[in-house]
């Protein structure tokens, strides 16, 4: 076969094969998993950088359940994403939109690619000729430009970094915000105490207090936990959910630590006054009434109220139902 014929045959073969391949791929049934695709666009609120599609955490699974439901209902991708972002605080879009602050993210790589390609083409067209031994003014001028540009760039870099530092340093040396991240696990109780003491006026201190008190509480150290919960419960800066959490803990400690039924019930009532829907407050109040005051009817009523909450998780439901049955049968609490 002559070289020419061989080329023609090869090209023909390539064209035919490529066409068939493109047709095959283009007509392939698209079974993109929309639920998965949407899930991958949302950061799981309680994880570190994982999307809800990849995280095994219960919250991520709940959110994926919601996505599946909405997809089944025929909701659009954007509507579902917006709903998730609105209803779960801490959920962040992992797929930055090409507008506002994040437009730069999409543009910068394209600009870099274009600029790089431009430099290569420019170099191809305008080869740098070997410099004459005695440099002309023009050449030295250009050569001075490079160090100048580098110096300007370096200066800009220093300014940026310095700005970063100053920004960070603007707050108190150990600002509450500095410890507000997920790194809290690495911070000792003593450090947290010190930070709290140094930031009494910081509105974010309540979050710190709650976190620290929670540690003491989990460790059974009610005595240390108590003042912090009290501060949060009485704080004007605390959010409603923080205050409710603190009141619930205070109530349970009053009963569990000091067997003070009335004080405990009072605290639970305060929590319910802020958040009438708090199943935890209602459930624990029922427990205290049952165990501490043998008030069976009141307890049963509260357990029923808890069960009537449609958002009660399934595993809790079993627990409450068991308690309700025990109360109704007149059993003493365990």
């Amino acid at each position: 076969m002559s070289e020419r014929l061989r080329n023609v045959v090869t090209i023909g073969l390539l064209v035919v094969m490529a066409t068939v391949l493109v047709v095959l791929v283009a007509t392939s049934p698209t079974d993109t998993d929309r639920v998965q695709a949407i899930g991958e666009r949302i950061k799981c609120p309680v994880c570190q950088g994982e999307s809800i599609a990849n995280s095994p955490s219960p919250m991520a699974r709940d959110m994926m359940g919601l996505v599946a439901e909405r997809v089944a209902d025929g909701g659009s991708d954007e509507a579902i994403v917006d709903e998730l972002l609105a209803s779960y605080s801490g959920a962040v879009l992992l797929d930055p939109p090409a507008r506002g602050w994040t437009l730069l993210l999409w543009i910068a790589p394209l600009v870099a690619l274009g600029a790089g390609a431009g430099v290569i083409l420019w170099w191809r067209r305008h080869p740098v000729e070997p410099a004459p031994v005695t440099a002309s003014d023009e050449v030295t001028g250009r050569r001075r430009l490079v160090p100048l540009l580098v110096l300007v760039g370096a200066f800009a870099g220093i300014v940026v970094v310095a700005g970063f530092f100053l920004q960070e340093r603007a707050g108190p040396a150990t600002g509450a915000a500095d410890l507000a991240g997920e790194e809290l696990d690495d911070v000792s109780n003593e450090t947290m105490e010190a930070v709290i003491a140094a930031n009494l006026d910081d509105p974010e201190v309540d979050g710190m207090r709650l976190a620290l008190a929670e540690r003491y509480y989990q460790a059974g150290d009610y005595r240390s936990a108590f003042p912090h919960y009290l501060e949060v419960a009485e704080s004007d800066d605390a959010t409603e959910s923080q205050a409710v959490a603190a009141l619930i803990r205070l109530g349970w400690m009053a009963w569990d630590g000091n067997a003070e039924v009335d004080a405990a019930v009072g605290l639970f009532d305060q929590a319910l006054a802020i958040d009438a829907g708090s199943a935890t407050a209602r459930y624990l109040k029922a427990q205290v009434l049952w165990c501490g005051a043998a008030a069976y009817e009141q307890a049963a009523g509260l357990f029923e109220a808890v069960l009537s909450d449609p958002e009660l998780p399934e595993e809790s439901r079993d627990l409450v139902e068991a308690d309700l049955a025990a109360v109704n049968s007149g059993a003493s609490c365990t």
Partner: protein
Amino acid sequence: MLAVLGSAGMLAGLVGAALLVRRGIAAARSDRPANLEGAVRVLVAGAVVAMGAMVLALLTDDFSLVYTANHHAIATPFPFDVATAWAALEGSIVLWGLVLTGYTWLVFHLHRRSPDRLGAAALAVMGGVAIFFFGLMITVANPFEVCVQAADIGCLESSPWPFAAVEAPANGPGPNPLLQNHFMMAVHPPILYLGYVGMTVPFAYAIGALSLGVPGPEWLRRSHRATLVAWSFLTLGIVLGAWWAYEVLSWGGYWAWDPVENASLMPWLVATAFLHSGIVQQRRGMLQAWNFILVISTFSLTILGTFLTRSGTINSVHSFTQSAIGPALLGFLVLTLVGSFVLFSTRSDLMATSPRLESLVSREGTFLVNNLLLSVYAFIVLIGTTYPLILEAFTGTQVGVGEPFFNRLAVPVSFLLLLVIGFGPVTPWRTTEKGLIWRRTRTSAVAALGAGLLIAILVSRNGWVVLAVTLGTFVIATLLGLLWEQARKRSMRTGDSHSRSLQRVVTGDGAFWGGQLSHAGVVLVAIGIAFAGNLGEHAETDLSPGETTTFQGYTVTYESPFRKTTPGKTIVGARLTVTRGDDVVGIVEPSWNYFGAQSVVGTPDVLHRPGGDLYFTLRDLPDEQGAIPIAFDTSPMIWVLWLGGLVAVTGGVVAMAARRRERRPAVEAQTVDV
């Protein structure tokens, strides 16, 4: 006692590093050969003693050290007790120091063989970097602080003074549970550090060459092997990290564009670009300035990676100032960048003007495109990783940048790279005779489209899978064609048999063919990713003991929950039998591992099958009746990904071990390479 020993080691390291800088500079300034051996010995001895003291403290449960008290427990089994030496921040800096001194020792031995000013200057730079890391150890990340006030478990208050009155706790909380779960903990950090830290060597030679005003290719020649060593370790580290994440950590996959993963990918990308552009300078004298930029960037990215992963900045921008390590590393990064580029700019008049780029259709042209793509790739990863941090630090605005962003930008760049890998090796230097590339690639193009068609008809019509197989086949077929052509020509010339010629061609240019082996590895990685990423199946269900379900043709029977207690951890999991037809394929035990009271780590179980893996993850603990929510995944052909990683590393090793052939500069036409 060990605190005193360790502190002495750190001090010795610092003194040795300072001596090395002083004597190195002196030697680089004069032609008088200087004795650097003493300084290097003190440096190495210091690092070894420091690491030895740490390991000894861990092995002997010496809780008088804060590090042991807070990161070790009596129950921590071997080898995790040793691996704890680098499991936390302070220890990881000690490991960094040890690896750095190891490379310094190597450079010193290369230098001793033919001592000259460039080698001395490079050693001085390495000493300078060592000063920073030993300084870090002694000041803000001191692993040899002693405990002066003990808690029940762990340490409350510490003192950097090794002779302080010690109050040691009886036990510690043990290392981070995530890292206690697998032997990879013992292996992965040292390998990754061997890659990271190794990039200091070409950086040191580059800065040395700039300082001495000798920007010619000598510094590249000297550091070439070290760069390949570091590159191979970095590649291995990344692949092992991906394997660990997939097989052990229950992260759901091998790569999640997590900042920690990105931190290792960025220097890899730029180092890969550097390996290629270095060849262009050695062969053609081009890209002199660009090589300096790349090597400075690579080194800076290793520091940036350490900053990102070790300062806690990723978890929360606000934890930045929590420890002084973040500002220290960031300061060192800025110092490196500013210092290097100022030095670079003051030497720009020394850079030889490049020879003309005669044609873009040439080997150097493909290298240029490859460098552009790799740099843009690194830039995509860099901006995606750091932009959310920068934005939040300055404006408080939270944005997320995750898989969708990276995939959308990085995947097209990856495919372009595959295409360039296909054409690069068959394109001659300087200019190309008309029709040559067509002749060298037409057969492989047919083979590639044929393979693509086969996959599309028999396996899947998913576009990414078809594209990966097509381009991958093109690369490998082109390489085999080139090898065949060269062997045939050699046979005709020498009369040797074909097999002997094949062998001679490969061994005759091990550096080139090692590189091509790495290319083949990259191709396999791409194919593995395309299959596992696009054709995986996922299902979730709840099972009670005794229940059976089917998944992808397999029957899965949930036998029972189980609980095992080993020293240091309790394992709660589910035992399932997987059958296909009448054959039992395997028994899997996905589980949750408890370390102490609070920390729980999930561990998947994986059944390896020739077509791909079956992956089982427990979504929650068994409830009182033993019922479990469980997830099933398939990862088709994922073994190709691991294989590809190992092939790429092997290629690096082959290229490194290859006898260095004194290359003729490619002045003649393209016949040189054929």
